[in-house]
């Protein structure tokens, strides 16, 4: 379960890095180096005053090195977090209320991702200044633009529309 959650809670050094939150969402077991992409996908950049803590490349039993993201005051819905499965398939989502984890679930691959990603095909209509939101079908091993049909299997994080 939360192998390293407890681990770092009891460790002063980690405590300094990533503090506990009172109410909100903890996204744990994000692949090392993907935390900023997680925030980008969720559209969280701190400009709305959210309290966000990020731990990157933290030692983890499950992933060797993992990232962890804590968002104070915001409970993320399943739909919101499922899109994270594209870049953080092992992520676990902890909903925290009054310092307790009240819900814990894993991300699931959605069938379709609206927005979030932008098509890498320069010849695609969605990259031409039209009033259209990108749409990608999620394949077993990649994503596919719902407009031009381009398939992307690697570096999906690079498509994140920031």
């Amino acid at each position: 379960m939360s192998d390293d959650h407890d681990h770092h809670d009891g460790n002063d050094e980690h405590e300094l890095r990533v503090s506990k939150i009172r109410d909100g969402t903890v996204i744990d077991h994000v692949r090392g180096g993907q935390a900023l992409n997680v925030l980008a996908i969720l559209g969280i950049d701190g400009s709305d005053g959210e309290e966000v803590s990020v731990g990157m490349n933290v030692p983890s039993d499950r992933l060797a090195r993992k990232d962890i993201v804590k968002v104070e005051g915001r409970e993320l819905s399943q739909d919101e977090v499922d899109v994270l499965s594209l870049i953080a398939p092992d992520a676990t989502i902890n909903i925290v209320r009054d310092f307790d984890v009240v819900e814990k679930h894993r991300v699931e691959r959605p069938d379709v991702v609206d927005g979030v990603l932008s098509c890498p095909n320069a010849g695609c209509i969605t990259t031409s200044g039209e009033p259209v939101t990108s749409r990608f079908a999620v394949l077993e091993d990649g994503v596919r633009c719902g407009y031009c049909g381009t398939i992307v299997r690697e570096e999906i994080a690079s498509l994140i529309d920031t």
Partner: protein
Amino acid sequence: MICRVPGLHLVATGSPRGDWLAGSNGEIQGARHSLHERMRHDHLITSKQFSRADIETILDYAAEIGDDPSAVADRHAGTLLGLLFFEPSTRTKMSFETAMKRLGGDVVDMGSIESSSVKKGETLADTVRVIEGYADALVLRHPKEGSATMASEFVDVPLVNAGDGAGQHPTQTMLDLYTIRENAGLDDLTIGIMGDLKYGRTVHSLAYALTNFDAHQHFISPESLQLPREVVYDLHQQDAPGIREHDSLEEILPSLDVLYVTRIQRERFPDENEYQKVAGEYQIDADTLEAASDDLTIMHPLPRVDEIAPEIDETEHAAYFEQAHNGVPVRMALLDLLLSDDKAIGGEGDE
């Protein structure tokens, strides 16, 4: 008046890919009626929308119209087709115009983009929303892939994709299939598709449609112009048998029933020498055809430049002008299926 069902996709209705053709005339009419129910007031974006039964229904209807165009001459009096061609076109545009007029309707034409508000920076989404107020259906050609899909989301009238960048060109595919059926038959077909397979939208549409017929497809091109991996992925998803890629026509030419040639465009190559070298290997003339079957049918979506030597034009092999002419009855059939409100589509034998 137009009451399109949003999100209706022909393929999603799971029409049976059956052998209804073997049945009676009543069954044929039933299949046409069922296809009409699904196509009526819907968009036509990709050849992926059609099952084998759908295609055969369309081709049968096109053949009927071709035999007796006068039977449908007044079916769409008062109907206006909006032509939006953001890229140059001769055959596609003129054959749509001819088809609509032969059905008793007329066209309104955006004209060249040089003289339109596109030049002022108008989005495609805005353009189609304006023109849909003028016309009962729209035909769109646009240089961007996915443009027809996107445009269809902004309009309620039927929108027909007449080419979206290197994407799809489904009405061309229908006339290609019609021509193949007339000349070589669609059963047990071995076809070679040669030239620019990377950017050739007619190739992408046709290759997918042919998976419905379990055709053996040979793709012949220089390495830099091979089929996009997306198209290959789709063909494999369809469990298409015998998909082969070649860099030379020579080894497979004798086995072909049909050779579909496309133009290799100069602008795909960094320099003139490279173009000349590559393009020269994918041209055919009388000498090339010595190794071919006497029954080989040669097709080309046109325009050709020098891929097919003029000396072939007068041979029994050449089907490319007939192919271009077939655009009219095929597009008449498609427009009628998209636009007709009445249930008696296809004549008197209908229930």
